[in-house]
């Protein structure tokens, strides 16, 4: 059994700190990006730099799992930390650990190039491994005490004070010091390694943040459509375009264009939003839309165009009754057809709400 000296304990505690910082910063960075993507959807545009590539993320996830597993292993080996049994957890924790493991395995699984059957076996093993690791990880970090570090430092200071300087054999001390360095080298490597990796991550994060800020300031200055709501609709329904620098319709050159000409039914036009009614002559299928405006209020000014966005037009008669549905005397089939179309209409225009309810029921 390995006996832990105070310095060993301190080194182990210090080794915990860089892993905690690396994990916290990189995971926090990723959460912030995704929350911003949810709250500001224009960031999910194609050229966005902040959008982490799936392969990079995979490397990051594996690295973090490896670093944390390694640190936990060291602690279990040297400090005899008690393992947390899954059975001792409460119901809520078990479900959230299960969901978290599922999410992580789903992601790691996509990069495994194996047969489907083998993939499933490996995924199941990985699921249980992560499920077992998560409670240890949470326990490991929730028991982190900075005051404990301070306590050890005070103990070391007191030990040093007790040494009488006169009785020191300097040559022996030097040899002891060299011996100590060689003995403690494996322990020293851990904090050094994690500090270097931490610094690398910090540099990467700051570089990305700078590029992102530049990109965002560039986007906000552009005449740009960021979103179209809804992407699929039928004629004579209202559609909204969101974006930047649309201006306030100052002259007849501020126009919403489609491949079939300009759209006249504009309900609202302000700097960030254009609301319009889909024209009746727009053909079914995919249509391109863009905005045009003059650079200044003067009609002589240069004309500017936005990026093109797609709007899919569906057949109106899939949702509304046709003339032939109202025959006299009406048959049962006519009533049935009108009811089905009405139901389809309700579902189509309330799809977001229905989806949400469905997911809630499934949950």
């Amino acid at each position, binding site marked *: 059994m390995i006996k832990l000296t105070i310095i060993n304990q301190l080194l182990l505690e210090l080794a915990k700190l860089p892993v905690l910082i690396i994990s916290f910063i990189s995971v926090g960075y990723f*959460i912030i990006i*995704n929350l911003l993507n949810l709250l500001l959807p224009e960031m999910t545009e194609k050229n966005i730099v902040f959008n982490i590539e799936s392969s990079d993320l995979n490397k990051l996830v594996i690295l973090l799992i490896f670093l944390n597993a390694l640190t936990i292993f060291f602690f279990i080996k040297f400090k005899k930390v008690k393992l947390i049994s899954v059975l001792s957890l409460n119901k*809520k924790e078990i479900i959230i650990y299960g969901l978290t493991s599922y*999410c992580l395995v789903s992601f790691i699984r996509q990069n495994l190039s194996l047969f489907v059957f083998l993939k499933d076996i490996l995924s199941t093993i990985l699921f249980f491994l992560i499920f077992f690791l998560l409670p240890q990880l*949470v326990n490991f*970090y*929730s028991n982190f005490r900075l005051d404990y570090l301070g306590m050890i430092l005070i103990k070391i200071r007191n030990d040093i004070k007790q040494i009488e300087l006169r009785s020191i054999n300097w040559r022996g001390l030097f040899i002891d010091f060299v011996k100590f360095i060689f003995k403690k080298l494996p322990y020293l490597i851990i904090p050094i390694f994690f500090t270097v990796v931490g610094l690398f991550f910090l540099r990467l994060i700051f570089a990305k943040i700078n590029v992102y800020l530049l990109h965002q300031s560039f986007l906000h200055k552009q005449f740009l459509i960021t979103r179209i709501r809804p992407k699929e609709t039928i004629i004579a329904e209202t559609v909204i375009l969101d974006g930047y620098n649309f201006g306030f319709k100052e002259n007849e050159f501020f126009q919403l264009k489609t491949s079939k000409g300009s759209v006249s039914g504009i309900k609202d036009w302000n700097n960030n939003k254009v609301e319009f009614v889909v024209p009746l002559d727009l053909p079914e299928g995919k249509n391109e839309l863009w905005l045009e405006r003059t650079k200044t209020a003067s009609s002589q000014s240069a004309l500017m165009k936005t990026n093109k966005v797609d709007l899919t037009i569906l057949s109106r008669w899939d949702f509304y009754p046709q003339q032939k549905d109202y025959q006299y005397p009406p048959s049962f089939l006519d009533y049935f057809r009108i009811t089905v179309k009405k139901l389809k209409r309700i579902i189509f225009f309330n799809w*977001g709400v229905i989806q949400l309810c469905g997911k809630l029921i499934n949950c």
Partner: protein
Amino acid sequence: MGSSILKKLIISYIWLAAFFIYQKSGQPWLAGLVFDPVINLFFSLVPILWLFSVSSKTNTILAVLFLTGTAFSSIFHNDLLAEKFAILTYCFLVASVLQQIKLLFNPKA
């Protein structure tokens, strides 16, 4: 008490990261993906709210706060933000109502 809250915060932190990582997986294992940002926000928050399960009153106060946010965002024509505030209002109201129902069936809890 403090340790319990810290533990819950760490679990929420890991869950949020795992949920967003899951959104990046092209072909998820066994289930499908939801791409709607509002539903994503909702699903990322549900387990966290459930884990913390603070009192019904706190949830109602938060719901009222988010409702005010929704109203202000709508007044200032920020529909995008209003949408997000509305879904958060809904989340907290649902949590509050569920807790009240739970109390009805199990008054000792």
